[in-house]
């Protein structure tokens, strides 16, 4: 059991606990900050699995850009803490909690046992090696950024470009919707 694996497990447990902390925060800004901490832990886990690009992208894109905008809006609107609303647990909520616990137990016993006995190997990850059954690599596994680029721009070029086209369409669509509303407001005023 090496140090990397122990840090991986510790980060995973911390991220799970922090997700619970996040949904119980009353201040929206506090919840956002806890979410950023979770994202950093996830980035650390990616890093330990030698997916350095995914780790860096996780922090730059999610924690460094998207969450900055979220926090910006929360601060701009100066959101007050959420009112605590407690009317007892309904049967539906009880059912959902039960389901969640059942899934956690099944996953914990299935994955957890392998993790504890065989470490990273049970995840199909051996440091410095390609996972079994992976597509043939263009570059040695240590050059994982180049391999990512090869997958994105050679193997899955069409899927990648179509996705970016879809996102572009969504951006244009959101602008159209926003424009329409402001025009209506202008007419009303």
């Amino acid at each position: 059991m090496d140090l990397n694996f122990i840090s991986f497990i510790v980060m995973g447990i911390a991220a799970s606990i922090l997700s619970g902390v996040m949904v119980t925060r009353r201040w929206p800004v506090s919840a956002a900050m806890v979410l950023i901490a979770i994202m950093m832990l996830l980035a650390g886990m990616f890093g330990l699995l030698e997916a350095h690009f995914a780790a860096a992208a996780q922090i730059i894109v999610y924690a460094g850009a998207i969450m900055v905008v979220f926090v910006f809006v929360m601060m701009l609107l100066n959101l007050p803490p959420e009112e605590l609303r407690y009317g007892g647990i309904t049967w539906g909520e009880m059912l959902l909690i039960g389901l969640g616990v059942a899934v956690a137990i099944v996953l914990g016993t299935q994955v957890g046992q392998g993790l504890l006995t065989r470490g990273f190997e049970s995840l199909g990850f051996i440091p410095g090696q390609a996972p079994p059954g992976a597509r043939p690599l263009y570059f040695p596994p240590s050059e994982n950024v180049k391999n990512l680029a090869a997958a994105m721009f050679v193997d899955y070029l069409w899927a990648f470009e179509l996705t970016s086209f879809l996102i572009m369409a969504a951006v244009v669509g959101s602008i159209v919707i926003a424009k329409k509303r402001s025009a209506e407001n202008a007419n009303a005023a």
Partner: protein
Amino acid sequence: MEGSVGVVAQFLESNIGVVAAIGKIALALAIALQVAPIMVWVERRQAAFIQRRIGPNRVGIFGFRVFGLGQPLADTIKLLFKEDFVPKQANKFFYILAPIITAVMGLLAIQGIPLGKEIIVAGHTINMQPVSLNAGFLYLFAMSALGVYGVALAGWASNNKYALLGGLRASAQMISYEIAMGLALLPMVFIYGSLDLQAMIAAQSDTLLFGFLPNWGIFLSPVSFVIFVITMFAETNRLPFDLAEGEAELVAGFLVEYGSMRWSLFFLGEYAMMFTLSALTACVFLGGYEIPWLPHAELVSLLVPTFGAEPATWVAALIGLGVLITKVAIFMFLFVQARFTLPRFRYDQLMRVGWVYMLPVALVNLVILALIVGILRLA
């Protein structure tokens, strides 16, 4: 006694990876922590010369004055003994956390800078980059992106209108300029064909134009260099981009409720980030730790006859560190010079410069260089 020395030596030998990592991190931390006090003194002296004053030149230790270099020490002692207060209306947890985030991100970011090529100790080759990841300088970018939370949270947690406005300005500015910054660096990635700073520096050791110029990034893509330096000012919240502080309209912005060591932690983080981004510029555009026209391997082979095989790499690493710090010092000088020369932007001007000028110029530069590099690769 000799036995215990042998045990220690054996322990160090068997754990060379861990020992080397700790050593490198400690070296980078030592540099980062020295930057703030020295820069405070440089900033005050340079400001004084620009404004035809003398500046701090009195403080000495045991009668040694050395141009007042004892001033930062006196300042630190003063700050440590000041009252450590938390305003009543503040959100205490985040008020305390905010300066820590800024300082920690500054100290973490500097770990991604290659301080030298490599040294050989007892037959082990040690890469002198504390954090050497496959994603290279993206790590630096990530840490620099997280630095904004310190400023934004300080503004929010102080629960003060001026501070909140400062925090809002900082986060909007950071996002606007980060994009241009990334786009300015992208051409360098495909020119050098790597994200790794060590590989980028190695690629710059050749010469251009029949040995007339070193093969530096600044000559390969001057537009990228200019955009990167300008966005660097914006990312570190320095004048003319220090709208988050703006003492004329916001008193001191996000800093308004801070005092004593908490206040100086912001400065520690800011100076560490200035050093890191200057060093990143030096590595990507100015050949990093390499002496112009003298690749690292040649430097080592020049030193081998005098010092022997292994110590030669140590001396070369020291020289490299000196060269890197000299290049960084040029940018630090530029930071201070700009601060006392240029007036502050208006906020709408700041946003216009970022989105209307920097971003399109960076994009056009990217497309043109991509075409040139693509055609050269095909040929």
